[in-house]
């Protein structure tokens, strides 16, 4: 047992559901007790989804405990098949069903006989993998299923497209700025005259998965999700993949050079040369390179920062801060313990120390010890920063609704470098301003006497009513006090009791 208040990565089934519900017309059925369909709330609220989340539960209740699920799961699958006519139904085990050890594969086999949809069982072990690992695995499983199906049916066309083309693998729902990143990547590929063959899983149809091998190469922007699929496609179809995250000026250039290499391997006549494009973008389209030179930025030289997040974002941001901005990264870390080796290798030489943990108290202690000028982390680090009075830029999941902005905010590509520069710069200036305010004692040293409308003291609050007033949360207390006093004056009452407070609330009609 582990005493836990907060976790960075969710349980395995969340990863599976994120992948399944990212595809078009794929339905997931969770084998879970009542209340475990919390994923629907998250998707509906955080992503502000307009459509019903295609996830339902086959409820595990007392009867199921006593007799097993029996027909229930099969019935639920066939029912969903009739109601929604999805292309694919993914039966998703949860922590509860992994202990029950029912033969879910058997249900899947039975259900797939009667239903028109394809049915598969997500192959994830709740106690062994987390949300991100499960997502990676489920994506690979779905891709493998459809490619093997196509091969069996003889519909698999292995010829590649005439023009250079790419698949983008790993964009999915509830991912950190994934939608914006996807748009930016498409733009980047378009600039390079490369067609986007497929984007999976977000918005993709499982029927089109058999076209994946048509692309010249695969682009896997995030370390966490998509690598397994890319490796599978490489093994099966010899498709090369690029797993350099195009985040920051240097890495974006590196990613483009890799693309150039793979593309030139396949063309015979004319060779592509992207160097002029990289140069143009770096010096004039992205403002980040210029910004690093600008006088403003000198002030950040040698400032201490701490970075924490998922492997992709934490590693990339660390490199950007250290290499492109001259900021001293005192500590960088990730909660992706399963990918620790890769992470260490990536940030080697860019930071003073490395912290691999999924315990937020350890991260908090580290930040308190180092006292950086700014933190770049998840929502948890933002709250740690609030407590310690250190500004924080959010660079990675887990996140809140404000990290699903409506405006265009990619982290990848050349526009991404602008966004990151803003984020970093704003975090630090706010910090500086804060310190200056502290030194000079605040903006406005003239004392504010009162915020209430009148200052006459003809009203007395008795002891109980004062206590009651103090129970009211601070942000509305003033308003309630004013309303009560207004009510008292209107009714010629001078002594305010608890009853008067209630009466004031009742009488309030605005």
């Amino acid at each position, binding site marked *: *047992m*582990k*005493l*836990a*208040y*907060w*976790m960075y990565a*969710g*349980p395995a*089934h969340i990863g599976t559901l994120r992948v399944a519900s990212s595809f078009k017309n794929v339905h997931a059925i969770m084998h*879970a*007790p*009542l*209340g*475990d*369909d*919390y994923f*629907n*709330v*998250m998707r*509906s*609220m955080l992503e*502000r*989804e*307009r*459509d*019903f*989340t295609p996830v*339902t*539960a086959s*409820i*595990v*209740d*007392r009867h199921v*405990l006593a007799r097993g699920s029996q027909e229930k799961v099969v019935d*639920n699958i066939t029912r969903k098949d009739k*109601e929604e*006519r999805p292309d694919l139904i993914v039966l998703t085990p*949860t*922590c*509860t069903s992994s*202990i*029950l050890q029912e033969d879910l594969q058997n249900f899947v086999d039975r259900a797939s006989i009667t239903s028109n949809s394809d049915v598969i069982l997500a192959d994830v072990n*709740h*106690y*062994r993998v*987390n949300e991100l690992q499960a997502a990676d695995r489920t994506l690979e499983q779905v891709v493998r299923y459809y490619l093997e199906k196509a091969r069996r049916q003889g519909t698999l066309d292995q010829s590649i497209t005439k023009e250079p083309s790419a698949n983008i693998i790993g964009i999915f729902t509830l991912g950190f700025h994934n939608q914006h990143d996807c748009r930016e990547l498409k733009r980047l590929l378009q600039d390079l005259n490369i067609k986007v063959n497929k984007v999976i899983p977000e918005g993709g149809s499982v029927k089109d998965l058999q076209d994946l091998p048509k692309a010249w190469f695969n682009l896997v922007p995030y370390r966490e999700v998509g690598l397994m699929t890319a490796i599978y496609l490489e093994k099966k179809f010899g498709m090369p993949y690029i797993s350099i995250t195009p985040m920051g000026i240097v890495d974006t250039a590196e990613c483009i050079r890799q693309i150039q290499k793979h593309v030139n391997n396949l063309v015979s006549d004319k060779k592509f040369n992207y160097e002029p494009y990289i140069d143009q973008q770096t010096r004039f389209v992205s403002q980040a390179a210029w910004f690093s030179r600008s006088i403003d930025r000198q002030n950040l030289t040698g400032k201490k920062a701490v970075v924490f997040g998922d492997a992709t974002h934490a590693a990339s941001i660390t490199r950007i801060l250290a290499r492109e901005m001259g900021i001293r990264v005192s500590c960088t870390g990730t909660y992706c313990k399963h990918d620790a080796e890769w992470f260490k290798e990536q940030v080697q030489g860019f930071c003073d120390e490395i912290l691999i943990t999924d315990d937020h108290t350890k991260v908090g202690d580290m930040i308190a010890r180092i006292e950086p000028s700014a933190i770049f982390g998840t929502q*948890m680090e933002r*709250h740690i920063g609030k407590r310690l009075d250190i500004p924080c830029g959010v660079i990675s999941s887990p996140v*809140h609704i404000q990290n699903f902005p409506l405006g265009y905010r990619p982290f990848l590509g050349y526009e991404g470098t602008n966004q990151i520069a803003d984020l970093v710069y704003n975090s630090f200036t706010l910090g500086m301003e804060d310190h200056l305010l502290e030194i000079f004692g605040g903006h406005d040293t003239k004392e504010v006497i009162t915020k209430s409308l009148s200052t006459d003291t003809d009203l007395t609050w008795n002891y109980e009513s004062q206590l*009651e007033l103090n*129970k*009211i949360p601070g942000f509305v207390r003033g308003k309630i006090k004013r309303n009560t006093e207004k009510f008292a004056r209107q009714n010629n009452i001078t002594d305010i009791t*608890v*009853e008067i407070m*209630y009466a004031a*609330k*009742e009488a*309030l*009609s605005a």
Partner: protein
Amino acid sequence: MSNKISETLTFECETGNYHTFCPISCVAWLYQKIEDSFFLVVGTKTCGYFLQNALGVMIFAEPRYAMAELEEGDISAQLNDYEELKRLCLQIKKDRNPSVIIWIGTCTTEIIKMDLEGMAPKLENELGIPIVVARANGLDYAFTQGEDTVLAAMAHRCPEQILLGDRKRVIQNSNIQNFFSFLSLEKKEETTNKYFEKSKKNPPLVLFGSLPSTVASQLGSESKRQSIQVSGWLPAQRYTDLPSLGDQVYVCGVNPFLSRTATTLMRRRKCKLIGAPFPIGPDGTRAWIEKICSVFGIETEGLEKREEQIWENLKDYLDLVRGKSVFFMGDNLLEISLARFSIRCGMIVYEIGIPYLDKRYQAAELLFSQNTCKNMSISMPRIVEKPDNYNQIQRMRELQPDLAITGMAHANPLEARGINTKWSVEFTFAQIHGFTNARDVLELVTRPLRRNNNLENLGWSDLTKKEKNKN
């Protein structure tokens, strides 16, 4: 009485495929209510993830709850449950020093049959802190019923009340209880005596249900107006202040989802249950007080006028809701009372979905709802237990209600289809009890309607892409 009701009322029961919160969410409000408590949820990452996301910002305020996260070794019994729990509870004692630790059993502890009830007394002795066990799991319960399981478990911990000739309070309970109350025993006797002298009219009355302290004192002062003294609340602000119970004590519930607690109080603590409608809405509040008064043989004073006054103050909101239709999808068991209040406000209720309906505990509320319907001359709406959300959405497509009261999973998709929604969970967290808060209920109900008054003429209420090849 319950038979009579079920003759005239129609209850339907669907598949139970509906969305609701897991009952462990009760820690969110209970840890705030019971100030000296610590809630330990014994479960998996799934439970933790739910709490973390459902409670949003609160999680960062150093809450007095935590997960005892079960790992593979716990599931396969390679680790000793007792030793593991002891280790964690010792740490909690060291860090927070609570007056009580409440273990919340989950689906996983049920399935692996972890004997929490058996381990608690042993560990309690070793640790010197009371440990209360509540099985608030998703296998058996929905959302607010979590509070019911916690309060039912706490009812066992309330001190025994024996009314002697001199009305002296004697506390008989576990060692720990004595240990805690020794210091303040003298003072307590004094106060008990004092208020027995002040109002000799009614026997001890304990109200059960967790309410914010402001709302609790509002209901208290409402009863005081009728010269009824409330002698205690289950739960109290602190665990060490749990009310005394016994066969002389009358109890009355303030929330519709407390049927287990009611049963425990009657059967195990021999209390007398006052079955009343719930004090939600001015009509409910009046009926609630009237019922308590009638049990104690007290004539109510000015109650009718008070109710009228409240309705008078609600006029602007009533004009907004009158004639509007509402559909309760059902997820928190407040639905019957809220529907009854809506009907009294002049709304048309198409359907009352509800996770679970205890017809005996809610008998008075059901009867009151029926009478309300009769008075407003409409027929009683259908009550659907264990609803099926998919079917409900089909029904809603046909009925096109003006307002759907529903969980967050459906709210945005329904809004995108032009159906106004109110998030049901807000009713659980807002102050909705008593005369004083009637306005708050309508504030919630009318919010989407008022928002529409602003957006109405912009012409973009349906915001979905046309669905192809779907029904």
